[in-house]
């Protein structure tokens, strides 16, 4: 079932065309990966889906409801989505526990249920021993886990990930990707993952979308694409 639909999006910044009539649709409970070089418009697309900005033209639907157009902007907090940012965007003045409690309180989760939820998610991502620490006291991998935990603690059905592994060690990358995969199946999530690394995309993605200069160039099921000889040269080019 289609959960996010993007129709003819156009977005410009300071007279530079970032997205050029981009359309795509994402299926529920699948991991869709947007792959493209730097400056291709991947992050802008994610920011529009999250609701941080309005497009110049075009529309975005989430669960068949129009949430974004030049005239409509449903605020991010009312879209039922979570996001892991490229910079992780951890709040420097809050401990790990405060990050999770803050998000839960914002969604008016009953006070008595908050400790249980924090316990559950910190157990899942392996942060139980770090709850009292501030971001500056954590390692790169631990910070990554906090960002993932914050995004998942509400169990929103859609999770956007904007190049979340761009700054961490390759060894840790695999651990985090496995963790995201596990959490996805455990919590029944729809993931939209943005990266410019094809190996990451192939490892995690069910469906791949290649974009370049703000346009969708190729899309398809990741396994089919890998096995399809027509895409062989394309992958070699991308790699």
């Amino acid at each position, binding site marked *: 079932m289609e959960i996010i639909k993007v129709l003819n999006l156009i977005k410009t*910044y300071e007279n530079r065309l970032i997205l050029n009539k981009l359309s795509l649709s994402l299926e529920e409970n699948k991991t869709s990966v947007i792959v493209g070089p730097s400056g291709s418009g991947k992050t802008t697309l994610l*920011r529009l889906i*999250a609701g*941080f900005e309005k497009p110049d033209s075009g529309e975005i639907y989430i669960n068949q409801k129009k949430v974004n157009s030049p005239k409509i902007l449903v*605020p*991010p*907090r009312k879209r039922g*989505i*979570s*996001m892991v*940012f*490229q*910079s992780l*965007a*951890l*709040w*420097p*003045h809050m401990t790990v526990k405060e990050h999770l409690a*803050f*998000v839960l309180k*914002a*969604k008016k989760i009953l006070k008595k249920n908050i400790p249980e939820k924090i316990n559950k998610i910190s157990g899942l991502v392996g942060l139980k021993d770090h709850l009292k620490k501030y971001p*500056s006291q954590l390692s790169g991998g631990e910070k990554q886990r906090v960002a993932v935990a*914050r995004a998942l603690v*509400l169990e929103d059905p859609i999770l956007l990930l904007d190049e979340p592994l761009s700054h961490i060690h390759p060894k840790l990358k695999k651990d985090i990707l496995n963790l995201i995969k596990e959490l996805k199946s455990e919590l029944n999530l729809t993931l939209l993952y943005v990266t410019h690394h094809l190996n990451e995309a192939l490892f995690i993605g069910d469906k791949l979308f290649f974009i370049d200069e703000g346009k969708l160039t190729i899309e398809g099921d990741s396994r089919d694409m890998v096995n399809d000889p027509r895409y062989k040269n394309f992958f070699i080019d991308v790699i």
Partner: protein
Amino acid sequence: MLKKRVFYSTVIFLFFIIVFLPLVLVFGSSFKEIGSALSSFNMNSLKEKFVIISNSFAIAFFTSLFSLIIGAPLAFLFSRTNLYFGKIIKFLCIIPFFIPPYIQAYAWIFILGKKGFLNTALMKIFSMQEPIFTIYGIKGVIFVLTLSYFPVVMFLISIGLESADPTLEDACSLYRSKLGVTRWITFPLVSPYLIAGIIFTFIFAFSQFGVSALLEVRSYSVDLFAQISSFYNESRAALNSLPILLFILFLIVFLSRKWEKGFFAIFITKDRKRFVKLGNWGQALGLIFSLLVIFLSFALPIGELMFQSRSLKVIIAALKASAKPITTSFLLAFISASLIVILSLILSSLLNKSKFSLFFRIAAILPLGIPGSILGLGLIKLWNNELTGFIYSSFLIIIIVYIARFIPYGILALYSNLKQVDNNLQDAAALSGASQFKMNRDILIPLLKPGIKFAWVITFILCLGELSSTVLVVPPGHETLSLRIYSLMHYGESSLIAAASLIPLLLSLSGFLFIKIIFAKVKRWR
């Protein structure tokens, strides 16, 4: 290695001699006064001290509060909205800081003094015998100081707003409304800058001397000056200043702890593209508010001084009559600001490496809390002797005064900037085989450019306006412009004083433009 140690030890020794030894001498001698102070203690003297201290606290508290009320919305308008002509208006809002506060006070005497033009007009219109509000008294001091110091609060808060990573707010907007984002993310991120702005304004307002003296308010600094110059009771003056010094020390320790947490990312220059788009009403209100502030803090007082000067001839006459003090002030402020920047650079790099960095930071910024007149006394005690008489009787003593008083600003600015420099950048240069000198010249100094600029401009302006220490130590033949204007204010002709009062603003602006041009031209240091 040995050379380096000798070099750093010399700088620390110099810092100790210039900044701390005078204080040790002056406070050391004050302890012998404890006995006589206790014996002369009575209800009347207590009451008198209470009035003086409460006046000073009221001035400092309300100046900080009103500076915040004016500075915070302006900072938001300039940093977070698409206000029309925002950059020009922001620059005009900073200019009041270039005008020494006592000159601002003097200009307002012409406007809201007992015979000020506004009061005269209002009394005529409403047929009153007495004006409703005169600039004299505590309210007037608070009003003038707010107009002088709100740029400090505005400047610091706008740095906080500009340097806060916008994705931190985006992340919060997934869960909270705009108001919630402001309350839970923006405010905590900006609060260290806001607190710093309030504390600086508080200290400035508490220790200022010229405005209170001109507007006839008995404040702590005026009282200290009176103890020294009228009663020649230096030790008692130093003793009296101790409790206040401890209070200021407490504020500085508080500030240093915030600093310790690494909140002061003063010189991050982020290209923030996400602005709040103001509608027509927002633009109109924003423009009215900021233009009103510019009118009151800059256009009206400076316009009035120009009007009082009567003609260009008088301004030229004032320039001619003050030619020597102008040259002296400009050169001494120029040399002192440059020396402060060099010393601050060295001391900041030491602070950055030191194990006792918190202790040293507090020591480095402690002089912020020392009243100018007490520092002046200490300098007299230290330098006025046969051995160092040649320094005391020359312009060097004024340079020492400026360095001792204003080096904390240089250290604050450059240490914050240094904290932002990624160590990897220097390591990468070292790996490429660059010498320490080349590394400093090609990597470190260019990265510290914003801090150097800020430190130089702010200390240059403060040196130009310094009064309370200089008045005690100035040697014959080296009168500064501030002193000349201040004495003219008591004995001179009003049109000449008004004309002379315009000169410090011109000098400050010329210093500001000078550093801008220098940095624009020297883009490459090689």
